[in-house]
């Protein structure tokens, strides 16, 4: 006797493969492997050590940077990524010209400000990346469950295109899209702390040249 074989379902197979691929891509992106909350290829460094960007005078010896209105105003401006790097020299020189006899000390204050502001901004970005990783991990889990649910629903012989399977399919497609879009932006997200460090280093170098 000929037994009824289940109707091959191309969607089920491709959806299952897609989910599998996505779920596998998650941990592959995450480096180092021991830290599931760090999805970037760059090494996770919690903060920027002052000594890797600055060999000038001790920042504390210059006093509290926020107490110096002009210095802190300049620090905010320099730290902002809206200020193009090619304007940095002009801004520092203009400040130095008006800074009076304490110019070197005040320039150190400016750097103290840039360092603190950039460090805070970087810490926020690092938090954001961790949240992003957690979100992606949760979404990967959900995709797996949704894929399972859809496979189960479609496995039953009477399951054709019922409303339930259609809804499940839609949900899976939608979540897959979100997951993929987020994964694509990962490369830019991971670059942000690096860009902040680059900017801080460059500004530090220019101020250091003037306080030698």
């Amino acid at each position, binding site marked *: 006797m000929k037994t009824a074989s289940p109707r091959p379902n191309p969607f089920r197979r491709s959806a299952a493969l897609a989910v599998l691929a996505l779920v596998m891509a998650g941990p592959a992106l995450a480096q180092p492997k021991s830290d599931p909350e760090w999805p970037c290829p760059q090494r996770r460094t919690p903060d920027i050590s*002052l000594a890797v960007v600055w060999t000038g005078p001790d920042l504390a010896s210059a006093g509290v940077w926020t107490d110096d209105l002009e210095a802190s105003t300049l620090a905010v401006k320099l730290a902002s990524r809206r200020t193009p790097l090619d304007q940095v020299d002009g801004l520092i020189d203009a400040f130095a010209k008006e800074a009076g006899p304490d110019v070197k000390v005040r320039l150190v204050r400016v750097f103290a400000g840039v360092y603190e502001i950039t460090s805070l901004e970087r810490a926020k970005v690092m938090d954001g990346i961790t949240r992003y990783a957690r979100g992606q991990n949760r979404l990967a889990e959900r995709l797996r469950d949704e894929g399972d649910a859809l496979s189960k629903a479609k496995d039953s012989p009477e399951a054709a295109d019922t409303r339930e399977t259609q809804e499940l399919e839609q949900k899976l497609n939608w979540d897959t899209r979100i997951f993929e879009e987020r994964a694509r932006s990962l490369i830019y997200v991971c670059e942000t702390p690096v860009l902040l460090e*680059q900017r801080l*280093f460059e500004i530090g170098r220019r101020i250091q040249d003037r306080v030698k």
Partner: protein
Amino acid sequence: MIAFRPPTSLRVLSAALMGAVVLVAAEGASAGMAYVSNESGNSITAIDTATLTVTQTAKVGRRPRGIIMSPDGKVIYLCASDDHSVQVIDPATLKVLRKLKSGQDPELFALHPSGNPLYIANENDNQVTVLDVEKNKVVAQVPVGTEPEGMAVSPDGKILVATSETTNMAHFIDTETYKIVANVLVGARPRFAEFTRDGKKLFVSAEVGGTVSVIDPETRKIIKKIEFKIPGVSKETIQPVGVRVTRDGKTAFVALGPANRVAVVNAETYAVEDYLLVGQRVWQLAFTPDEKQLFTTNGNSNDVSVIDVPARKVVKSIKAGGAPWGVVVAPQ
């Protein structure tokens, strides 16, 4: 009509003069120049070491890393890692003259002091490829430890050293028999090897171990493991990579990666005498022939720092291409 034909003596003289001009041109083309490989920029940058300015930038193969020159300064050899080849480049025009067989994913290499052969580390195949650069012919493939990387040839050309990243070893290979004659355990993830000019010491940097091992090539024993400490910089950030030792064997310079510093080490007492702030993720180093300047590649700040060697001061930062990796300075 009879064409003018200069007397033979004149012809010989003019030919000799032409030859001399060509010779001067060939030697003058690269003298006083530094060449930088830009890993993400897929380019090389030429820098005039007298004016410290960029004279030319040219596209090359994908992911260029290791870069060296022939002893006569006539060609540049470049590892185009993602193209799985070594490119031979004209230093005057920066044009790729030809491509050599390198094996998979070449990263670093060393040239025999005579200018041939070339020893290439193939990280993925766990072997060293020995290549005749004239014939573009693979002479031998030597299996070594996992992920070979740093390469150095002893000044007498008799011993080749290959470091393997995962096995944490410096392998000593006889260049006549291509047999491994000794394995020395060094720090974690050895990256780079450099012989002193007299061949009496071998410096091997360990990126993860954070140390530089000084080995006696005679006994093949470690004489000293140099450690680095920078106040305010975490231990993990100090990742030694490129090493260069002055010709007199008295001073070693060590690039410390993301610590953004170059350590100045007394190569006789092994005391670290200074840490110079250069650029971000400092990777490789090269002296000018007079050893008055040292060039450093800084991968994250996309520049090259110039160190005044006698004064031990960083005197200039020169913008290069994307992620500068290796640097070579033309011989005199």
